[in-house]
């Protein structure tokens, strides 16, 4: 059984009178621990796909099985619970809460999950250490560099030890060097067993993934598994 199974997913947006087929007959299955890049031009439906995978959006038709469980029919609160415990999000614009410190931002998912204060402090301290943010714990996002902000965001995404990380253009707002650091960080997490799904239109970043899904006009046009081919040096 694959970790993620999408079957015949349709997503239609109604804009005024016209209907836009954001996703059309998308079927794909992703195993636990895979490293997948979703690529394609703007408007190809890759972000919609990521939102669907993250249970932020609902398909109009088709089924989405996460770890063998049909999650499309869950109630909003049950979906929130799945997002909280199984899914970590990393966004292009970081999405840190500006009035909270780095440590508090990282602790947000723990707070939402109702983890007690002592346990929270312990896990946040470990995360800060793991991501090299110890000296920045008490700083607010506007006092952090772009790379540090994204590291805080990744620490936050992983604090609940999710099964998968969904990253939407994680390096889009970063310069090249920092972008590479962040990519390396994400790949490290993937190496420890977490499924990593990255949406990007940066071919360099995409090419690093072992599996590349190419989308066009809401349809999956290519599913390239680099791992089976000769891995580049």
């Amino acid at each position, binding site marked *: 059984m694959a970790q993620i199974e999408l079957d015949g997913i349709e997503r239609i947006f109604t804009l005024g009178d016209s209907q836009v087929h954001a996703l059309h007959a998308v079927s794909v299955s992703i195993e636990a621990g895979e490293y997948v890049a979703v690529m394609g031009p703007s408007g190809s439906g890759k972000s919609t796909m990521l939102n669907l995978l993250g249970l*932020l959006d609902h398909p109009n038709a088709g089924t989405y099985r996460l770890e063998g469980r049909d999650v499309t029919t869950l109630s*909003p609160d049950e979906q*929130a619970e799945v*997002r909280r415990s199984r899914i970590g999000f990393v966004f292009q614009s970081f*999405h840190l*809460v500006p009035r*909270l410190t780095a440590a508090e931002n990282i602790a*947000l998912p723990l707070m939402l999950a*109702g983890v007690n204060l002592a346990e929270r402090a312990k896990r946040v301290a470990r995360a800060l250490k793991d991501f090299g943010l110890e000296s920045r714990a008490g700083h607010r996002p506007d006092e952090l560099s772009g790379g540090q902000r994204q590291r805080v965001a990744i620490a936050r995404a992983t604090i609940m030890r999710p099964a998968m990380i969904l990253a939407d253009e994680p390096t889009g707002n970063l310069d090249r060097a920092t972008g590479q650091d962040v990519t390396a960080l994400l790949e490290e997490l993937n190496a420890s067993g977490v499924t990593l799904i990255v949406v990007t239109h940066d071919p360099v970043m995409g090419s690093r993934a072992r599996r590349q899904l190419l989308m066009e006009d809401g349809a999956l046009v290519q599913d390239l598994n680099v791992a089976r081919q000769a891995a580049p040096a």
Partner: protein
Amino acid sequence: MSPADTLRFATRAALGYPLRTALMVLAMSIGVAAVVVLTALGDGARRYVINEFSALGTNLIIVLPGRTATGGLGLGNLITSTPRDLTVRDAEALLRAPLVTRIAPLSVGNSEIAYGGRLREAMAVGTSADYLAIRDFHMAQGQFLPREDLGRASAVAVLGATLRDELFGAEAAVGRMIRVGDRRLRVIGVLQKSGQALGMNTDELVFVPVATAQAMFNTNTLFRVIIEARSRDALTPAKRQLEDIMRGRREGELDVTLITQDAVLGTFDRILGALTLGVAGIAAISLAVAGILVMNVMLVAVTQRTGEIGLLKALGATGSNIRLAFLTEAALLSLAGAFTGLGLGHLGAWGLRLAFPILPAWPPDWAVFAGLGTALSTGILFGVMPARRAARLDPVQALAKR
């Protein structure tokens, strides 16, 4: 999300926008302060009036001649329509009512009072020995009017404190002869200072036996008869007994009016209570306005923090988590406003008491609770809509907004 976390999160959110929060708290506090100050003013006026009346004693019945009433054709009003005099004999008869403990007839008039070379205008009050106890006056020197037959016009007088000072200065007053109107009277006592009661300064009165006053003013009728009932509860039955006695003396016709202290007090109490409620209502309007302000501020907060709400949803916050966080924030703003307002209000009431010492301007307890309650409930009530809007935000669109 635990309640403590919700509270902490909402507090951080409120403090995260200090100007907005300060303005909000200010608006709410003005509303609450207005309620507190205005009710303090209204209730102060009420208490002032009641105190004035209570100075007279609370179990008193006042009898005055004449009656404003629509009566049928009776033997009494067939012969004459003018009210009969209320006489000293009537007053004596009233004392026979079982529930009555004391009576004091009153005959009042302006006259001249002179001692040595000094002359001044003073109000002379003709009454009896029991007046002292009924009004709860105390003697400074000498004694009050002697207990004697009400028809006896003894040539004695009792002076109010101010009158004594002005006529005698440093001299002893008791035992001296003074002239009141065309009579020479011996001063037998001086009252202690007691101050203003019902607009009449007792310290400037001269008290003489009722018969003396009647002779002085050449009248048979009494101005009032003040009657003390056994207790406050006995007022109503005592009033009935008094009416029966008066009817018996007037061939079945009741041509006097009986006023109980309670009735007068009750009327003032009701009028001023309504007034207080009225001003409280007006002040409460400002609270409603503050409530709408809370709603506006919270709606702006939802728009401002759309991205954050989307993020919280992505991190696994349920709709109720978010609703509760925003509602808590609105409640905190109202609470802060309410307590600031309470402080400001008490400060205002204190200022009022300082400026008008005779007015006991304390806000009534009910007004304080009503003010706080209204502030909190409007804040929360008007916070519901923005909180629901926040909870319903579509996470995808919320995240797209930056």
